[in-house]
């Protein structure tokens, strides 16, 4: 499990350019699914057919991560950039970025007060000595990610892009564990979540599921003087009640809570007052899809060092597996 998370978090996949991640996942799961395909937006869709009278469940974990995109290369070879997805400026200065061909750069700032530090006062230095040299290595419009290695601290793990490679890892593990599911399972490794839940929207349209479940990260409130949030690391899978993109269907919430209780899976309730997940896009597809989300509690979300607890990941896998095998007639 930890090895799966390591491989996934070390892969390159800013929004719109997720192929390395989807290819990696494909090699991990091909032997365990009945069918596998991609669509126009690059979503990877893996299918386990299940029993003929089961419900169609779409599980979504997004493969993309936040990052940067080069917008300008100046005479001295410094790069200017825009952010891809919700990147906090405080996480940038001194941070390193990596481009697809392995080029590494460091982000720093023009002289300025921290208070009015804006993105256009930051630049990336890839060590080039001229514009020409820089342009041989990157071009305008090149997407990059934050460069950071995976660390195993025991129960706790740190890596970049735990959001949402840990969700991908949950689905990969679940795919391996689920043998003959009662329901028809569509595991969708989605693209472009960080820029507006885009991949999930077109995938859900195509699949027309009966139930949509996003597996994604959520923030915690268990750090010093943290924002009020009753989710903690190590206390189990978080069952979402709402976020800005979705109010979880009351029946779906109840199904997940009952499953956790029945199977003694540790869980906590999540009320997120901002942010969204793929389920937000899924539930508004066509004439509506009852949807919910299983969240993995994560500290320092959208920083290069996102921390999770492996026990919460295991609980999330168990919950996905339990749902895959549950008869869902109450959704009719």
């Amino acid at each position, binding site marked *: 499990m930890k090895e799966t998370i390591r491989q996934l978090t070390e892969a390159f996949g800013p929004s719109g350019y997720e192929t390395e991640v989807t290819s990696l996942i494909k090699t991990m799961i091909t032997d365990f699914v009945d069918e596998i395909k991609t669509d126009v937006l690059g979503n990877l869709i893996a299918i386990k057919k299940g029993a003929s009278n089961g419900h169609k469940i779409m599980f979504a974990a997004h493969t993309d991560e936040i990052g940067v995109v080069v917008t300008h290369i100046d005479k001295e070879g410094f790069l200017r950039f825009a952010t891809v997805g919700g990147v906090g400026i405080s996480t940038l200065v001194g941070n390193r970025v990596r481009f697809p061909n392995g080029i590494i750069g460091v982000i720093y700032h023009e002289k300025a007060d921290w208070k009015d530090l804006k993105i256009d006062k930051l630049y990336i230095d890839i060590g080039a000595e001229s514009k020409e040299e820089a342009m041989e290595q990157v071009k305008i419009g090149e997407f990059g990610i934050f460069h950071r290695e995976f660390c195993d601290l025991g129960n706790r793990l740190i890596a970049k892009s735990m959001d949402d490679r840990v969700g991908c890892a949950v689905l990969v593990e679940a795919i391996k564990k689920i043998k003959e599911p009662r329901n028809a399972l569509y595991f969708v490794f989605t693209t472009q979540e960080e820029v507006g839940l885009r991949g999930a929207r077109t995938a859900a349209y195509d699949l027309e599921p009966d139930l949509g479940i996003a597996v994604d990260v959520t923030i915690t409130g268990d750090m010093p003087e943290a924002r009020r949030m009753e989710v903690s690391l190590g206390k189990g899978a978080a069952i979402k009640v709402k976020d800005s993109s979705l109010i979880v269907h009351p029946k779906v919430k109840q199904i997940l809570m009952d499953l956790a209780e029945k199977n003694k899976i540790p869980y906590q309730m999540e*009320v997120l007052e901002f942010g969204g997940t793929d389920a937000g896009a899924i539930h508004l597809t066509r004439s509506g899809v009852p949807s919910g989300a299983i969240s993995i509690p994560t500290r320092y979300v959208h920083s290069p060092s996102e921390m999770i607890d492996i026990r919460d990941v295991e609980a999330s896998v168990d919950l996905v597996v339990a749902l895959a095998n549950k008869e869902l007639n109450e959704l009719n």
Partner: protein
Amino acid sequence: MDVKHFLRNLSESSGVSGYEQNITEQISTACTWADDMRRDKLGNLIMLKRGEGTKPKKKIMLAAHMDEIGLIITKVEKGGFLRFGTIGGFDQRVLLGQEVIVHGKTPSLGIIGAKPPHVQAHGEQNKAVKLEDLFIDLGYDTKEDAEKLVRIGDLVTLKREVIDLQSSLLAGKAFDDRAGVAAIFECFQILSTLHHEVDVYGVATVQEEVGLRGAVTSTYGIVPDLGIAIDVSFGDQPDLRESETIKLGNGPGIAIGPHVHPKVYDRMVKTAKEWNIKYSLDPSPSPGGTDAYAIQVVQAGVATILLSVPLRYMHTSIETIDYDDVKSTGKLMAMFIAGLNNEFVEGLTCF
């Protein structure tokens, strides 16, 4: 049926966005006129009254949202006090001192409190109390006792009985947009005495307050040729500009803007004049914020219009309307629908 009484009951019932079950039941029980009724996957209640025209009949959809804004429990504090967030757009300043119903294991009374003025620092009283500093007092003494009843993610609604003001004015909560639902009922009451060619779908939509969500999926399921959204609009009050408001007692506002089909607008205005129904023009340069915006762009596009019941003090527990406006909104829609024929509806895609 007494639609005004029905509206009172709706207003006093609880149905926060995503949790409209209770309102749905009341509406479906009261709905005696539908030929067919169903709920879609998101909980929209769709009530069909068939027209008398020849097949294939055109479809018109009337949409008003039944959800209300509310609060949601985010933490149970020591001493049994509850912290909360919002669902939908609440002004934090109107919450202090409100009585609420906490929908835990059983519905229970709570009071929204904050630090009393006596112990506040100098100058603090000039500032609004922030949402994160407010709490609900359930009357329990310990966290453990409170947790027997309430858990994180439980919903909270304001507790308010409808009161009558002078003439035909009413004050209460959630008239946004249950007044619109009442207008649909008024419409059908009249329509059942008239002939109409088109099939009419009355829809009580869900989750409008969190992003017009129910309208998106219900429209997809119906695929109407014409959509009328009925919502509330800012009524005249002393602290607002005249150009931002419509007058109470002057009938519905008829919106004009990108979300309104020009031919439907012309026809609606003509209908109002023909039947001597008062109305206000309601120019809307920024079209978002009502179900009309969502209905318009579903599938291959829907000709839409927005009618608004004027309402003062929006998103508070003392929303104030003139019931006569609800009646005239219903009447205007009924007359409009009775006058529709296939030819007019087909013409809506010809520009």
